[in-house]
């Protein structure tokens, strides 16, 4: 078993740079999730770790070995693909044992390992079938089994759940979490689904445009996003933003106001801020509550009543559109005005360049 170290990793296709210098340390046994929008380079980064893409610049260390020029088979990795990539002409047994066969493992050892993997994944009854006779979830399980038998240092998952239906996705997600717990192996997991990221990860890496935006524990990313991108990407529905002007700066607090909002003092890092600066205020839909005389007044544009909560799309005076999630059922009519308030310490102030100004933790 081993950890990973990425040092200033770069990848270019011709003149197009897709990975622009990624530095990352993954501890042994950690579950790391790469998230980001489509085209952010997360799959490319994973494929570079796997050895399916060449590394243009930087260093990739797996354990104590510099792996830039090492063949995939010698990196001690196993990969699970989005569309399973099972060999259609082989039975499940042969699919799982293919790697061992190539490594010329003796037949009895091979057989034992295959049956062991099948036992872990509870698919002993599927061993004689062909992939075409399996359901999506079963195929994914075989793909995971193929990874397990290799006893890899690092498991790589490339959006393994996105081809499954919703119920199966939840189930398989739990199985992967359990697998990580049982095997204690290092796992790197790529997804665009933030529920998967939040529930599975020890550590989330948010990528955008080939650059790491933030690395941290899931709840840390939710509560203290480093910048506008992470704030908008983590959390569902996404965080609301509004442009405001700094009115006063006092110790540890910034008073802001704007076209959409009455003056309110937000806890924030204050260095370099002066009255008159334009900043962005972010607040999560769940942190807003209905209160007459609240700081924010908007017009209701759409109401989705789910029973346990009500999701309201709201139009602010500046034409900005916000989402509000209120607990319980609220019978609101479209076009009516709604006044909202929030706890000042739930809001986040972002600089003009998008960097968050979280107050310092004690």
């Amino acid at each position: 078993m081993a950890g990973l170290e990425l040092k200033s990793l770069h990848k270019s296709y011709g003149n197009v740079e897709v990975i622009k210098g990624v530095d990352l340390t993954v501890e042994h046994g950690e579950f790391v999730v790469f998230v980001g929008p489509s085209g952010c380079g997360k799959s490319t980064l994973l494929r570079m770790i796997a050895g399916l893409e060449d590394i243009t610049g930087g260093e990739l260390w797996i354990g104590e070995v510099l792996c830039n020029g090492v063949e995939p088979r010698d990196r001690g990795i196993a990969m699970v693909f989005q569309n399973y990539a099972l060999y259609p002409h082989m039975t499940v047994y042969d699919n799982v044992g293919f790697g061992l066969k190539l490594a010329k493992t003796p037949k009895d050892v091979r057989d034992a390992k295959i049956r062991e993997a099948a036992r872990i994944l509870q698919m002993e009854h599927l061993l004689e079938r062909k992939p075409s006779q399996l359901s999506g979830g079963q195929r994914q399980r075989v793909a995971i089994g193929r990874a397990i038998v290799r006893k890899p240092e690092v498991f790589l998952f490339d959006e393994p759940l996105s081809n499954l239906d919703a119920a199966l996705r939840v189930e398989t997600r739990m199985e992967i979490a359990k697998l990580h717990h049982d095997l204690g192996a290092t796992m790197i997991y790529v997804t665009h689904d933030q529920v998967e990221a939040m529930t599975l990860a020890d550590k989330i890496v948010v990528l955008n445009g080939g650059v790491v935006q933030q690395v941290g524990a899931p709840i840390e990313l939710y509560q203290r996003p480093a910048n506008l991108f992470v704030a908008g990407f983590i959390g569902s529905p996404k965080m609301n933003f509004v442009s405001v002007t700094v009115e006063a700066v006092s110790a540890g607090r910034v008073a802001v106001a704007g076209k959409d909002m009455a003056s309110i003092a937000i806890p924030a890092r204050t260095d370099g801020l002066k009255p008159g600066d334009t900043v962005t205020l972010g607040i999560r839909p769940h942190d807003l509550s209905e209160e007459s005389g609240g700081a924010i007044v908007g017009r209701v544009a759409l109401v989705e009543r789910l029973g346990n909560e009500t999701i309201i799309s709201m139009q602010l005076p500046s034409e900005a559109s916000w989402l509000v999630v209120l607990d319980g059922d609220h019978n609101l009519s479209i076009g009516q005005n709604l006044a909202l308030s929030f706890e000042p310490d739930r809001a986040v102030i972002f600089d003009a360049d998008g960097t968050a100004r979280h107050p310092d933790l004690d």
Partner: protein
Amino acid sequence: MSLVRKYGLSVLAILVSAVVFLIPFAFIIMMAFKDRTQAQLLDFSWPQGFHLWTNIVEVVTTRNWMLLTAFINSSILTVASVTLLVIFAAMVGFVLQRRKTRFNGLIEFFILAGLMIPPAVVPTIWLLQGIGLFGKLHGLILVEVAYGLPFSILLYRAFIATIPRELDEAAIIDGARPFDVFFRVILPLLWPVTVTNIVVQSVAIFNDFTNPLYYLPGNANATVQLTLYNFQSQFNTSYNLLFTNIALITIPPLVVFLFFNRQIVAGMTAGAVKG
């Protein structure tokens, strides 16, 4: 009336195809049953008497059992050529589809050129003589492979495009070297096209008349199609023996065809839509 309207065209189509495909075949069979005098009339008449067996014996033993040598030669030629064709065409198709380089356009041009430009006989003979392969069976095998390669590559390449690249990658991660990826993962998946290639190319090569005529002279080297010349000359032709010979050498391609028939269409259309 409505029956005619409903089935009329179908019946007509069946009748026309029967005339086109079955009548020549029936003619061959009937000629093979006739004796020399009746066959000389070249008409569509019922055979008088049963002369098939004597005809067969005559055809097979002619010129010191030449037909048997020819069958052996043709079999070696067909099996060897088709085997090489399948492996090389699948390899070229695989690399061409998977590895995009700036030479791809040039390579594709050569493939199309191989299909379009008619083979030049005299320079080829000159070349074969130069490398000592003229009049040798393995020389002709190379010629047949060269002529058949472009078409086989085209068939394979379209199909390989439908095999997800993740399969190659999964195999690479599993520890497969390039030859393992090709022979253990890709080639088995190409079976439908391979069947099509086997049938199309083996029938073409087995039935090839001109290439063996040009490149493989000599009695010991005769292939089955050349044995047809045993029974015709400028002034005198034994039609009964000629047609018996035709009937005999039609059997192997027919068997191949019947054997693989059902899988051919699958291979021809495979790759047309994502399955």
